[in-house]
């Protein structure tokens, strides 16, 4: 059956309405994102101290970044952080999501329990876990009591700080991923699993051949946001260690330069590097998505 094309006037009206509807958010985006971003880019070529005048110093901030051992350390820590977040919380939430979506009852309560850490503020969770990590009364005491002495360590010492803070953030983050994965998993036709069972597929095969291909787009989205977010993460590290040696990240380095060292121009250069990394990740994922759609 042929569907008649909408009249020309109607199409134009729709376009006009769409444009009008977009104006407020575009104006907001321009004011809050585009202009500050341009300002940041320009400031990254200056010696601005965050207060008054800015003198153009060309690429000096970027050159200094390349030779700054703190910067390489921060980049490496961000990559380590990303590695942790791309593995543990994603795998865990996918697995638990799969189990919950097949649970006959009680899954709503469990889902709420798992999601709960996500609504606790970083400041509060960070303080609570910092107490757990206390060498005198924290989890070390529990490990000793259980005879697990090999697990006893100075959790927030520079050598362990990054992993210790990441564990807290993963505890907070994975519940959110779980909810997204469950939403995606619920879109899978149960008939597919039933057919696979009839064919004799085990659980692992069902996950590999049915679940993962079916939630591919969600998975790509999760990986994308995890990567971008790992580049800009700040709050847990700041609350728990203030970016102390061993847990310095790009964002903590940026914050300290802008507010404690009066080097806002340098901080802007760090911010531009951060933003560029995020854009590169977006670009790569755009290509992947296009390939997937093809």
């Amino acid at each position, binding site marked *: 059956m042929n569907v008649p094309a909408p009249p020309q006037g109607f199409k134009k009206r729709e376009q006009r309405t769409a444009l009008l509807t977009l104006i407020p958010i575009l104006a907001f985006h321009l004011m809050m994102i585009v202009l500050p971003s341009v300002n940041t880019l320009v400031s990254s070529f200056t010696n601005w101290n965050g207060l*008054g005048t800015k003198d153009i110093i060309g690429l000096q901030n970027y050159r200094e970044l390349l030779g700054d051992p703190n910067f390489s350390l921060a980049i490496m820590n961000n990559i380590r952080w990303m590695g942790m977040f791309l593995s543990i919380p994603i795998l865990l939430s996918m697995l638990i999501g799969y189990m919950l979506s097949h649970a006959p009852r009680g899954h709503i309560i469990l889902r709420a329990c798992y999601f709960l850490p996500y609504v606790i503020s970083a400041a509060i969770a960070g303080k609570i876990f910092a107490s757990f990590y*206390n060498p005198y009364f924290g989890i070390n005491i529990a490990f000793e009591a259980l005879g697990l002495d090999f697990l006893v360590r100075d959790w927030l*010492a520079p050598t362990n700080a990054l992993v210790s803070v990441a564990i807290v953030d993963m505890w907070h983050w994975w519940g959110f991923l779980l909810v997204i994965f469950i939403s995606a998993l619920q879109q899978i036709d149960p008939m597919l699993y039933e057919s696979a069972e009839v064919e004799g597929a085990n659980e692992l095969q069902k996950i590999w051949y049915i679940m993962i291909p079916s939630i591919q787009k969600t998975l790509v989205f999760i990986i994308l946001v995890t990567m971008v977010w790992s580049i800009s993460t700040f709050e847990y590290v700041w609350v728990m260690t203030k970016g102390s040696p061993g847990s310095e990240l790009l964002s903590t380095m940026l914050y300290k330069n802008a*507010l404690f*060292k009066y080097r806002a121009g340098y901080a802007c250069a760090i911010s531009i590097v951060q933003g560029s990394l995020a854009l590169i990740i977006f670009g790569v994922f755009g290509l992947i998505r296009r390939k997937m759609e093809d």
Partner: protein
Amino acid sequence: MKRLLTMCLITTLCAGFVFAGGASEKVDQPVIEVTHSATQDGQIATYERILQQLVDEYNAENGTQYLLKYVSGQGKDITNTRMSSNDRPDIFSLDSPADVNQYDKDGLLLDLSPYAQRAGWEQTMFDWAYKLAQVDGKVVTLPFGYEGMVLWYNKSIMNELGLDAGTIDTLAEYEEALKKASDAGYIPVMLGSQDWPWAQEWYLSIMNSYTGRDLVKKTIEGTSELGWSDPAFKKTIELYQSWHDKGYLADGKSYILTSDDAINAFTNDKALFKLEGTWAPYWIAPLEQADQDTIGVMLHPAINSTERPHLPLAVGGMWCVSSDTEHPEIAAAILSGQLRQEFQSDFLQNGMDVAPIQVDEEEFQGLPPTVETMWSLVNGALAEGSFGYTTWAFYPPETRVYLYEGIVNVLEGTTTIDDYLAEMDRLTTKELAAGFTPVIPSTR
């Protein structure tokens, strides 16, 4: 209908954006805005009352109708942001002379010289404070509050170990006390910087100052021959590291423990010494009387034969006036008014910064004994000119941040002392070249 709804939605959204910033109450009277970093209720109320009194007096004398707008809780991050925008307060507080330096470089501070001269600041204030008020001979700030680092000791543990605080003066005597405490199962010195990294610089302020005040002054001013690479500094950091390695310094966990751990260990009779600032009165008050009674106060013993025990000095804050204020007269009057004797008692009773002036002795009576002792140490040191230099008051900002962050790597063994000091040197040289002007009073 659909179109109408769409238009209504767009209008509502636009109106939302327009009014999102809220609307300030329109008043005909001029407003003088004072921002400050205070966050304690008692301190906020005291400031507000005193500032209001000063504004009222100014209005009565000059026939003006100024309204006071006092905004508390404005830390360095907020002040920096506001001062880089067009929404600047008339009067604001900064943390240290190093901050004043940055603001002055950008012409953000009002030249207070004529007002200071008229109000006689030079005659009223301590010499060192008046020197801190100036940059390049121009008065640009009112330093407010003076404080220093002292050593608290636990009287019960001291008695149990057969020690007498009055006889712990030299490095040998101090190390013997530390060893005795350690052997008896106590933490010799408590310090926690995990949640407050700046706590590391408390001890380093003492260590560097005790290395040689003149050397520190020259190093910061860039006139010392070897700068931070001077062997004297190396020896000091080696000593600090040895205390860490022996577990004297917070069981070797000073950067893993929090400031609460430090206080709890000390008040629960687990630590012999605790490093503390003389600004602590506001949190001593809520302690049980028994806990307060167990606290003794002393100056840190000497660490070499060059310097005798002294008090590294810091200022509590720096009152400044924005260069584009439309109300310089009242702003200067408010600053000068805070130097009056009558307000100092209020400041002291509320554990707040006091003016850097000779405060009447009776004002210090009736304070908790620990607080009173700390004040007598501070005032005694100032009277003798026997003060040193805290890092946060006098060091250039980047050098200062590296000082307390880099030391953790030294203690962890991931950076050598030579590299640490070389980096300090590089940063100080760089900051001086970039225009940092050290303002460091001389000691006697």
